[in-house]
């Protein structure tokens, strides 16, 4: 509690005691990040506005999920800062970080439900861990969250009994169990049928408005994200290639963004992965050819 008090104090100093928090809830400043020899981000800068649904888009392998991991300090940048409500999260101790993470809700790509617990227990898990609420109250909270995602009737099922879309919705109920300030979605639409996808799209917008939270949606599903996002970033080549409202991005002059938004098979992002000359490789004239 002492650590949390210190964190709140630091937060208080940022609001000048007025109680009003800055509009920029998350700032990524001059971030460099590499994995081995591969540079993922080079001098990346972006901000997430409070209360909005912000989409992080980009071709596969550009580091969208890595960016989420940097924002939640699952990874640390090689250089630069990630600020949450003006606080550099790299300076937080483990206890302070865990206090901060209680303000986050994260929907993982595959749901990441705890497989040895029922749907009910999965949603109750963070509440049991962080509060001393009586079981009767926990039951009310869990059923409310499950009702919000339309799965109150599935409370007694085990994760193995759920379809992909249902598992994603249960994970969403768990993500909002602690009433977070910031909800992060990592590829929430991947592998879903059109009906499940529609349900998730609807939930993203509804939850953001109903709970008055900030949402960050990482996706490469341009059309579905555009339906709910207030603002979007397109990431490519380690930096922000374009940003704006979905409408602005659709009308962009950037060839790369055009290719991405319209799903063109070839363009600045080539169809082929870097490879030696095709003819030379087939004829075996290169010493390193397979």
């Amino acid at each position: 509690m002492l650590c949390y008090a210190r964190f709140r104090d630091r937060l208080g100093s940022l609001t000048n005691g007025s109680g009003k928090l800055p509009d920029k809830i998350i700032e990524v400043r001059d971030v460099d990040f590499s994995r081995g020899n591969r540079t993922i981000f080079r001098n990346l800068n972006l901000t997430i506005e409070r209360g909005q649904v912000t989409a992080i888009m980009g071709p596969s392998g550009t580091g969208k999920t890595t960016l989420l991991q940097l924002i939640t300090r699952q990874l640390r940048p090689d250089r630069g800062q990630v600020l949450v409500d003006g606080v550099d999260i790299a300076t937080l101790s483990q206890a302070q970080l865990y206090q901060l993470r209680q303000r986050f809700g994260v929907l993982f790509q595959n749901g990441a439900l705890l497989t040895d617990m029922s749907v009910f227990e999965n949603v109750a898990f963070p509440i049991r861990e962080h509060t001393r609420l009586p079981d009767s109250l926990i039951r009310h909270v869990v059923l409310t969250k499950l009702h919000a995602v339309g799965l109150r009737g599935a409370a007694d099922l085990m994760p193995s009994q759920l379809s992909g879309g249902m598992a994603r919705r249960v994970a969403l109920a768990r993500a909002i169990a602690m009433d977070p300030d910031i909800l992060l979605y990592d590829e929430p639409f991947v592998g879903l049928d059109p009906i499940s996808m529609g349900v998730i799209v609807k939930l993203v917008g509804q939850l953001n408005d109903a709970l008055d939270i900030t949402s960050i949606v990482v996706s490469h599903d341009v059309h579905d994200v555009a339906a709910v996002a207030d603002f979007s970033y397109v990431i490519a080549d380690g930096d922000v290639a374009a940003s704006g409202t979905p409408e602005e991005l659709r009308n962009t002059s950037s060839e790369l963004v055009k290719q991405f938004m319209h799903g063109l098979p070839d363009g600045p992002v080539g169809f082929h992965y870097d490879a030696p000359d095709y003819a030379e490789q087939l004829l075996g004239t290169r010493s390193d050819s397979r």
Partner: protein
Amino acid sequence: MFRDIYVTFHGFLQNFGAMCLFLARLVQYTPSVLIKRYSLVTYQVYNAGALSIVIIMVSGLFVGGVLGLQAYSNLERFNAEDTTGIFAGFALIKEIGPVITALLFAGRAGTSLASEIGLMKATDQLSAMEMMAVDPLRYVAVPRFLGGVISMPLLTAVFTTVGLLGAHLVAVELLGVDVGAYWQQLQSALDMEDVYEGIIKSVVFGIIASLMAVWEGYNSVPTAEGVGRATTRTVVITAIAVLVFDFMITAWIL
């Protein structure tokens, strides 16, 4: 070639150092886990211990039977078959009981722990816990480690007891050794120091087997191949470490 040896040795030292730090963190969190999450520890004692009892008892029975046979056939040559109980008892209590229990534990519970934790990692369950501000080391690793450490001496006691009964069955019931001589010789020859040796070994082997399982699972590469490799490494490294430590403890005690 020297460079390869250096790189291998350097990697081994790095890995060993990281594992020692991991063990230190497990030990550091143990008191709080025992107080706040004792139900998780109890479940893991059931999972690693109670669920291994059948394999331990069956193995103990046949290992005891073999010891009874070997002891009888060799001692009979010197008309010393009445001391079969001593031979089987010493072997089971001081050496074979702790060692084989640890090897069986690594094969049954160790692989289960390593693959379970590895799969939790591969399916982002550990990351999800971290994002829910729940330390997976406290919630997942420590209860499983403690479950193994507590289970091993109990399983060793079960193995040794059933092994002695197996030796009794073969030597007394089948081969005709006098029942009074079998148990009386064992009782008079055996000191508490011999029992303590078995207990010390079972505790040390319990720490080794549980640490290896939890460490390998926790640090596995989050892919199907990575989890498989972690499971295999758990068994191989535990087996080698148990045999090395068995020699070291025996040399130290003798």
